[in-house]
């Protein structure tokens, strides 16, 4: 650098992304423990696709390829997408999702740092809208061995009766629509565990552990996870207290679906999210609110991805309207 400062903290985008990848490990470990190693195949597949797409697009854009791949942002997008998909989707679903996320959502807007939408979440939404059937086949905990999972991923015949089950959110929704109360649904459903979906509650715990690591390393600030969890707890808690027969408990909401992954890893994407402290609180809380609304009243079992994308649209406005007060300007009106 020609001008001051002449010293720099040993920080890099690679380090930031690497830390987030590392923080995903406890969640992935729980995933493998509960659902088998198939997810690892998907993660590897997604990562390789992401690197290939990133390299290809950077080449097309005549930009340095090495730096772009080395910053690990593409791999992180790939992991977040793969972790959002059912672990037994055929390989081309994963590949398609990553191509959309990296090739279109990230690079059509100018690459790293320029995308207004969360790439992994757009990839997920494209897939769930285009292939709703494949995207709703979730294996039950401990049901499928690795060989079966691999066969399914590689495009084998999908005779899934008895092997997959509706997820906790799905079962609850079907049960409630069928006229049963929450307690009755939970009592009979095989999909339910201690807190949320059977097995998924452990994965959620793993994500939360990783999230705490992100907070401890100051990779993320407290605003978004706290606002997200608080808002989800508040809204689901209010309805649960008012009508426990028709509404699941806050704990169920927090432990089910992608709530913990979203709270610490997805809503916290800095590029497409709000950046001011107050903006972050509003951003994450709104996502929780939208997710709960879709879960409770919408057409999809989970609404996190839609919530994220809707709030991505609002992020610039949130930032503009929540600019923090500058040193020496306290007490002034903006």
């Amino acid at each position, binding site marked *: *650098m*020609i*001008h*001051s*400062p*002449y*010293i*720099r*903290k040993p*920080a*890099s*985008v690679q*380090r*930031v992304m690497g830390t987030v990848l590392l923080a995903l490990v406890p969640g992935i470990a729980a995933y493998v423990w509960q659902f088998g190693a198939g997810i690892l195949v998907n993660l590897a597949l997604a990562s390789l696709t992401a690197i290939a797409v990133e390299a290809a697009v950077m080449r097309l854009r005549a930009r*340095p390829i090495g*730096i772009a791949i080395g*910053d690990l*942002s593409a791999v992180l997008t790939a992991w977040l997408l793969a972790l959002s998909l059912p672990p037994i989707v055929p390989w081309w679903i994963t590949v398609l999702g990553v191509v959309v996320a990296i090739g279109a959502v990230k690079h059509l807007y100018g*690459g*790293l*740092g*320029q995308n207004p939408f969360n790439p992994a979440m757009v990839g997920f939404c494209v897939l769930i809208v285009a292939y709703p059937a494949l995207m709703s086949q979730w294996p039950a905990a401990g049901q499928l061995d690795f060989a079966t999972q691999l066969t399914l991923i590689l495009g084998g015949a999908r005779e899934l009766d008895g092997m997959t089950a509706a997820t906790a959110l799905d079962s609850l929704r079907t049960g409630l629509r069928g006229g049963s109360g929450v307690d009755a649904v939970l009592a009979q459903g095989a999909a339910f565990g201690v807190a949320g979906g059977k097995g998924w509650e452990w994965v959620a715990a793993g994500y939360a552990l990783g999230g705490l690591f992100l907070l401890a390393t100051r990779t993320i*600030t407290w605003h978004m996870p706290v606002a997200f969890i608080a808002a989800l707890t508040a809204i689901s808690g209010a309805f649960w207290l008012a009508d426990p027969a028709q509404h699941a408990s806050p704990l169920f909401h927090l432990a089910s679906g992608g709530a913990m992954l979203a709270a610490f890893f997805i809503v916290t994407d*800095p*590029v497409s999210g709000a*950046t*001011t402290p107050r903006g972050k609180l509003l951003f994450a809380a709104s996502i929780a609110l939208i997710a709960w609304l879709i879960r409770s009243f919408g057409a999809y079992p989970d609404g996190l991805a839609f919530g994220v994308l809707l709030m991505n649209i609002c992020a610039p406005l949130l*930032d503009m309207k929540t*600019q*923090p*007060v*500058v*040193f*020496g*300007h*306290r007490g002034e009106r903006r």
Partner: protein
Amino acid sequence: MIGRLFGFRGGVKPDAHKNESAGAAIERAPLPRRLVVPLRQSTRATARCIVQPGQKVLKGERIGEPEGYLGTAVHAPTSGTVVDFGRYTMAHASGLETRCVVIEPDGEDRWIEHAPFDHREATRSDALAWLRECGIVGLGGATFPAHVKLGKGAGIETLILNGAECEPWITCDDRLMRERAADIIAGAQILRELIGARALVVGIEDNKPEAIDAMRAAAASQAEVSVVPVPALYPAGGEKQLIRVLTGIEIPYGKLGADFGVQCFNVGTAHAVYRAIAHGEPLVSRIVTLTGNVERPGNWEVLIGTPIDELLQLARPRPDTDRFLMGGPMMGFALPRLDVPVVKGSNCVISASPALFPPAPPEQPCIRCGECARHCPAELQPFELYWFSRAKNFGKAQEYHLFDCIECGCCAYVCPSHIPLVDYYRFSKSEIWARERDKSAADQARERFEFRNYRQEREKEEKAAKLAAKAAETRAKLASDEAAPESAAPPPAAEDPKKALIAAALARAQAQKAAAQPKNTDNLSPETQAEIEAIEARRQSGGNPSVGDLPAGNAAGSATTAASSSASDSHP
């Protein structure tokens, strides 16, 4: 006195690197071969040179007279001979030149006669004038004149003495506080009395325990003085940050501490004030830290005007040094050349090697992680300013408080994308200034143009009014003329008023011509008269248009020219 500290948001903790030079006691740097003393020693003011090349000067003798409100006097740093007065390159990032007096020391270092100044007996304005005469400016780096900063002498509650020295590597204030604490406190007390403050608070970063102890010992018996350790967190030594930490008061951009009842001086400035008042010595030297990639880091008392290349020999830079930084690594600048003089704001020269100051990794895209915002002591959103600056959206950058940025470098220090953020802000600021300059130039041009239009319009109106008045006068005169001779003889005018009007106008014109022509040609000397006649004759014979053909005014004008030219001929 200070109950609690307030802290400030943001800030960074880079490696302090104080140990390299903090142990080295202040030594007097030997006299250089020659001194290049810039006359521009305080911000925005250059002193007027009052010495001639060849003139002998004594140490402390005035060589530059202060000009303007912000000006301070400049003095010969040692005794010797003035050998040149001209433009020399300054220690500046862009290698700007300024007027300098070059002095060849005679080796005697002989002081001019000087006497202490009793500021308690003198009036306040005399005391301020004395500080101005002694060339006292802020030694923290900004070189703002002390007499201006001391202001009106009212409304200041607390005087803050800045001994924070938060930039890495620099130890000149640390050593000064350790070794000359009593003088600093005495100088600060003088400043406190002059400014009319009740309390004196010395803020020192807590990584300088020896300096804190020394200052506490020096201030022990003085109840109004408190020495306060502040957490070592860059930029705690920034004036606004230190004021905030010690008093909780926030000074916004464009405002002075004085508006809020606080004022801040550097410890080095207080020391210089003490020397000026108690000993009558003008400011001719300062402490400079030489450190970094050198064999012998240290702190030197250096005469103002000492060339940096000569000074650096004292520290012996190692061979792998690739550049030299003036000031600290956070806010300093790389010296474009080394044959530049030490000035009153020079606190440190760092010898930099690629090992100590590795080149920045390639710049990557901003990921809006907000790390910069978390460390910004001005509580800005630096990445937003970066995006606006990149897009040259300067209006938006200003709206997001670009000018509240103090360019401390914290944002660039922490940026994981290695973006030279401060450079973007400097770019935006200078673009905005340039546009404002252009705008004010355009405004001036527009004002000039509008005034010209107004003036022409006004002249036209005046002319019209004059004509109208004249016409009215003529008409009135005509009427009275007609009325008067009516009884004596019936004039032909009565038959044809139009003809009469023309005749009257003609007569008037003739009278005017007769009156005008001799106007500038009477009282001429006989030879001039002869000359005019000769010229007239030549003109007539040459077939040139006669004077009569020219309008009367022009004829008079040419006569005037001829008269004056011949007058100057006759009286060379």
